[in-house]
């Protein structure tokens, strides 16, 4: 049983290294993230995807973060991802148009097209993960929430509860590491009291379920208890839902922010337009 659950939790962690990226306005960072996200989604070219990945890793370097740390957050979902992609590889081979058929073995068919699909999928998942991790690693959650609230502010006119959603997200972000640590404690407590260890063949799902429920239910109860405490704390400090509020922290928009936005806009347009004629074979 693995106890060090938080070791691989990189999303939601903020690492203050005070780099150029850290000092950007959170609104700029959010917009840049959005633009990069769109760029990643919009391009079907493998070369562009690789370049985008390199760009992301370069940004990580610029924020004085260890690239290894950022990528480590992928570890927990690695198994699921690999499984998904193997399945994809098996099923996508029969799609038309297929391009060149690389492997034709009874029912298994891998074509140029299917390989490209799967490769694109892998790259996209990694890129999205790194993108979001970068955002949370370089921006404290409070700034993220406030930035998002300001950006979405105009939507309040159409009745969207912008402030409430922003607050909800901030609460979630703030409590993810806390709950993970609590879960670790629960696991240790259960193990030290000789709780079920759930060691069984992988297909004995009932054993695994029986072993995990004593972990999951206390997790929920702890979360609900903390909710009660938080509600009390907020109301005791005079928080009234639906009231007009002003902001304590103001954000100053600098030239660096404009540069970042324009840069990302440029990248998005490039990704949209970029076709690499000489390398069409790989695309």
């Amino acid at each position: 049983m693995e106890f060090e659950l938080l070791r691989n939790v990189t999303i939601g962690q903020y690492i203050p290294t005070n780099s150029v990226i850290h000092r950007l306005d959170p609104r700029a960072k959010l917009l840049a993230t959005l633009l990069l996200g769109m760029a990643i989604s919009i391009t079907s070219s493998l070369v562009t995807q690789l370049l985008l990945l390199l760009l992301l890793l370069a940004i990580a370097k610029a924020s004085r973060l260890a690239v290894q740390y950022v990528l480590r957050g992928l570890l927990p979902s690695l198994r699921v991802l690999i499984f998904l992609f193997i399945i994809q590889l098996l099923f996508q081979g029969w799609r038309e148009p297929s391009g060149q058929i690389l492997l034709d073995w009874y029912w298994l068919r891998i074509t140029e097209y299917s390989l490209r699909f799967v490769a694109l999928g892998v790259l996209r998942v990694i890129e999205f993960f790194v993108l979001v991790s970068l955002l949370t690693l370089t921006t404290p959650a409070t700034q993220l929430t406030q930035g998002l609230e300001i950006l979405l502010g105009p939507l309040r006119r159409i009745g969207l509860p912008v402030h409430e959603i922003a607050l909800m997200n901030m609460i979630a972000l703030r409590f993810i590491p806390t709950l993970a640590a609590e879960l670790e404690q629960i696991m240790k407590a259960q193990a030290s009291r000789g709780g079920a260890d759930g060691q069984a063949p992988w297909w004995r799902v009932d054993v695994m379920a029986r072993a995990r429920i004593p972990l999951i239910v206390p997790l929920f109860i702890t979360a609900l208890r903390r909710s009660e405490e938080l509600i009390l704390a907020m109301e005791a400090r005079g928080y009234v839902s639906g009231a007009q509020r002003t902001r304590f922290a103001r954000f100053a928009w600098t030239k660096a922010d404009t540069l970042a936005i324009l840069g990302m806009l440029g990248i998005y347009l490039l990704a949209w337009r970029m076709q690499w004629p000489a390398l069409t074979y790989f695309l």
Partner: protein
Amino acid sequence: MNISTRKIVVAGMMIAVSAVLAITGLGYFPVPNLTNDATIMHVPVIIGAVLEGPVVGLLVGLVFGINAYVRYLGLPFFVDQPAWVPILVLFIPRVCIGLVAGWVYLALRRANQTFALALAAILGTIANTALVLGSAIALGLLPVAAVAASLPQALFEIVLAAVITIAVVAAWKQIETGRGGSSV
């Protein structure tokens, strides 16, 4: 729209639980299945909806949906599809989980709490699976055989969701009332 402090906090906390279940891998149960593991990441949506109403279910489902959208956007299914396809297949079903579960519970809780909890969880999970698979098949992204392939996973998710929902809500209501027993 005036959403009370309580609803905001519970919704936020349920989102956090969902995230922790995903990040730590505790929410994934390998099932003899052709597709992915059975998951319980939708259970916080159901529990939020049951405890605080369909609005909270909607909010948590919204974030869960955005999460699913970002996470699965890269899948080869969606590579050459128009933009609204992933939204329909990934996002909308998750939003519906909370609404369905919340309404079902509200409608049935006067009759029998345990039954209402179970049905809310079951119908919520079915709503998710049915909508995701249904829209994927209707759009031609998956063969109809995918239904049979995902059946073990779906069944397991339904059972787990019901069990966990009842266990958590029963324990929680007991704690809340502070008395020795509860109606569940």
